[in-house]
């Protein structure tokens, strides 16, 4: 329970309209897209940095846990208030403060929705590359906290690669700024990289300066089918190995394609054992040349069919199908576990085989889906969490998948984060000293551990 005086002073900061405390409203903030729940005591909607600072000052005095939230689409439980306390929801702090395409940056508040930023940039002929599957609703603040990725991050890099600077409120309520509007900046530690991906455990980002890029003049999308999953994965390793860098290179196995097609009915190749969705962008002539090189590699690996999307509409349909994968798998069972391991691109064929073998061993359905070009794999296992026996097998399968990724010099998460989902696996890829070092930083920045407690650090 939070001290009633503290509650009153917290309410006074935002006013009653921006404070939720009824059981009905709190129940709407006990979840995100991960399947655990924890009830907060209070939800506050700050609109300014000063409000955030005021809230944190009170929370640090009373040692009240504070969990940041944007749109609540984390798939690792990062925005679940595991220890109760305050949920600090940034959805109303959503102004785009500056668009400066001449100097190629934007300044935004954390509640700005990724897709809204894209919409605002499009008229200038610019875009912000990170494109997580949740981009239609997820916020820049959440994207920064989780260091979000997405399909086109293969070529363009992930969220952290676009942060030039930020303003952060620390646990004490103190406001710090670092970075600048400049792409080149080695003035002191690059602290934005520390806060990006910290999942709200180190501070609250209240504004961020992001690098933006001009939209490519030309985009082409290919749908490629194989009659063998192993060949599909080998083609990926071959393309990347040959020094070709498409904007996106997505792999889907038969189970994934069939499940999507059942819902979407857009004529996906349901008989193919493996499917690749490849996108190249840039100068038109370069795209054509790149497609030619890619086609050679695909044919050398036994591609059965290569189709180029003819219209923008066709292209959008293919991507819609790909983006719907998570959702359609959700339909198959009460609980869906999506993995997010990464392995070096050259290990994609091996990792794919291992995933399929492990799923077979535990008699589980698996849909293998991957941002294959950068080795980021999302095997999805639909199951029923309330079925103890089945869930036991799921947990064992994921233990083994995680260990397999680690054994191939891979890692635990490419873009989803650790949150509540993967803390126990950290030792697989980080040694004791490294984990302890994270603890040292956490302790220095948030000595009372009020920021997003119960998570990985």
């Amino acid at each position, binding site marked *: 329970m939070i001290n009633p005086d503290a509650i009153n002073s917290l309410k006074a900061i935002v006013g009653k309209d921006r404070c*939720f405390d*009824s*059981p*009905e*409203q709190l*129940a*709407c*903030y006990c*979840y*995100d*897209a*991960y*399947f655990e729940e924890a009830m907060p005591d209070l939800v506050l*909607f700050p609109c300014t940095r000063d409000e955030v600072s005021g809230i944190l000052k009170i929370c640090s005095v009373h040692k009240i846990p504070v969990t940041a939230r944007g*749109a*609540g*689409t984390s798939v690792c439980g990062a925005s679940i208030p595991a220890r109760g306390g305050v949920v600090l*929801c940034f*959805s*109303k702090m*959503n102004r785009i403060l500056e668009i400066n395409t001449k100097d190629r940056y934007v300044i935004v508040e954390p*509640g700005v929705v990724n*897709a809204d930023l894209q919409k605002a940039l499009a008229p200038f002929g610019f875009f912000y590359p990170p494109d997580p599957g*949740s981009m*239609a*609703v*997820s916020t820049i603040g959440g994207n920064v906290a989780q260091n979000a990725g997405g399909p086109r991050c293969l070529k363009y890099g992930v969220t952290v690669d676009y942060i030039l600077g930020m303003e952060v409120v620390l646990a004490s309520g103190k406001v710090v700024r670092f970075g600048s509007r400049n792409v080149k900046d080695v003035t002191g530690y690059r602290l934005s990289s520390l806060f990006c991906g910290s999942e709200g455990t180190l501070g609250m980002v209240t504004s961020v300066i992001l690098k933006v890029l001009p939209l490519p003049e030309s985009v082409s999308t290919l749908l490629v089918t194989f009659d063998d999953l192993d060949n599909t994965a080998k083609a990926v390793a071959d393309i990347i190995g040959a020094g070709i860098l498409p904007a996106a290179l997505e792999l889907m196995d038969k189970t994934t394609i069939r499940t999507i097609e059942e*819902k979407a009915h857009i004529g996906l190749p349901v008989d193919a054992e493996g499917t690749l969705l490849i996108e190249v962008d840039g100068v038109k002539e370069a795209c054509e040349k790149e497609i030619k090189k890619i086609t050679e590699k695909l044919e050398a690996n036994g591609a059965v069919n290569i189709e180029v999307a003819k219209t923008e509409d066709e292209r959008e349909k293919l991507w819609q199908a790909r983006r*719907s994968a*998570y*959702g*359609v798998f*959700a*339909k198959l*069972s*009460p*609980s*869906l576990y999506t993995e997010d391991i990464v392995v070096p691109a050259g290990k994609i064929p091996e990792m794919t085989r291992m995933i399929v073998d492990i799923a077979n061993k535990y008699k589980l359905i698996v849909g293998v889906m991957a941002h294959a070009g950068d080795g980021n794999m999302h095997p999805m296992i639909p199951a029923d969490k*309330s079925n103890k026996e089945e869930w036991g097998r799921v947990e064992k399968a994921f233990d083994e998948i995680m260990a397999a990724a680690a054994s191939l010099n891979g890692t635990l998460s490419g873009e989803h984060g650790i949150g509540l989902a993967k803390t126990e696996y950290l030792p697989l890829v980080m040694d004791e000293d490294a984990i302890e070092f994270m603890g040292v930083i956490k302790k220095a920045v948030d000595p009372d551990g009020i920021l997003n407690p119960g998570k990985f650090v």
Partner: protein
Amino acid sequence: MADSYGQNCNKCGFCLSVCPTYQAQGTEDASPRARIQLIDFFSDHKLGSSEKLKDIISKCLMCGSCANICPAGINHPERYVRMREKMIRDHGDRPEIKSLVSLLAKESRIRMAAGAAGMAQKIVPRVFAEKYRLGNIALKQFPVLNNVPFRTATRRAMERMPGQKSKGVPALKYGRVVYFTGCATNYLFDDTGFAVLDILRHMGVEVIIPDTQTCCGIPMLFHGGREKVKNNLNTNLACLDAQGIDAVIVDCPTCGAALKNDYPGLAKEFGLDQEAANRVAEKVVDISTFIMAHARPEGFPQNHEAIHVTYHQPCHLRNHMPAPGSAQALLNALQGVEYIPALDMDSCCGGGGTFFYEYPEVSRGIAKKKVTNAKATGAELWVTDCPVCRINLGGYLDDAAGLTVVHPARLAAQFLPDLKGRKG
């Protein structure tokens, strides 16, 4: 957890991106994902019934966009309706909404009320009218009731010309249809009704307007009056399931969706004639689709000056009808119409049946954006199929706006040879 409908919300959050109330309010409790969570909490006894719960569940436009985008296939509207019933049972509804539900359940009551309201509208002094608002709409901008209900007017017209079904009908070209007028056309917007008739006559279609038809039942269903819908369903099926009918024409997407999607299931639930419900459902078609399928609107005579037109796509057309693009196809086909799409053509207007009346603040925020974007197109006409959208959006347009909301049929009818310039 899997719900009682065998569907399960994975909380992916896709629905947040299309939900008009979430977009307007920016708080999770205004989202479809949260409503489902609360309904689950309620049925698992983790949360008791309360006014607050009722309010959160009711504060929804019932647009159906959440169900449309949901990858897990949750039937949100159905679950909301069931929950609304429970909440209204426990906590009642606003008196004025309750009387609306009771009104629509019986045609004679609607007629009487419309008559009384018509009288009131004529005698309400101007000052008074400007001061008071209906929801967020000033009374002055609220549509004037039809002098005579549309269906009564057409009946009288036919009585005056015995043996003649409709004037100026060329030889029968297409067939015979039933026109389900809906309450709005009958009592509020007879210009839509006459336009639909003009077009169908021009096409050489024999039109039957059953006298006994009544409210489709959706307003009652959305406001906890499920058992009241049975009568309406029975009455409507009896007059719509006539022999030798080629189509059941609707001008309102909500009525259309009710007849097409909800009637078969409701007929089963109420133990009514399911076969009849299926037959009717199969024949339901919106007027724009019907025109595009059986006439050549490209051939409608062209006006000398191009009319600049923009469009608002009603949610129930987009989410529940088989041809969401029908009206836009018609606009594009009409020679002399220059269709300029608005930026947010396909986003909700904030009307939502009685929502604009119950939650004027939220509704206003949603509608104002629509109005700004529609005005930015420079159009003179704002075409939309749904009468509630028309009331709601029209409510923000005074004479100075230079923009009038009309039904697509009304626009199309303007181009017909012998009817050009007809006053609606």
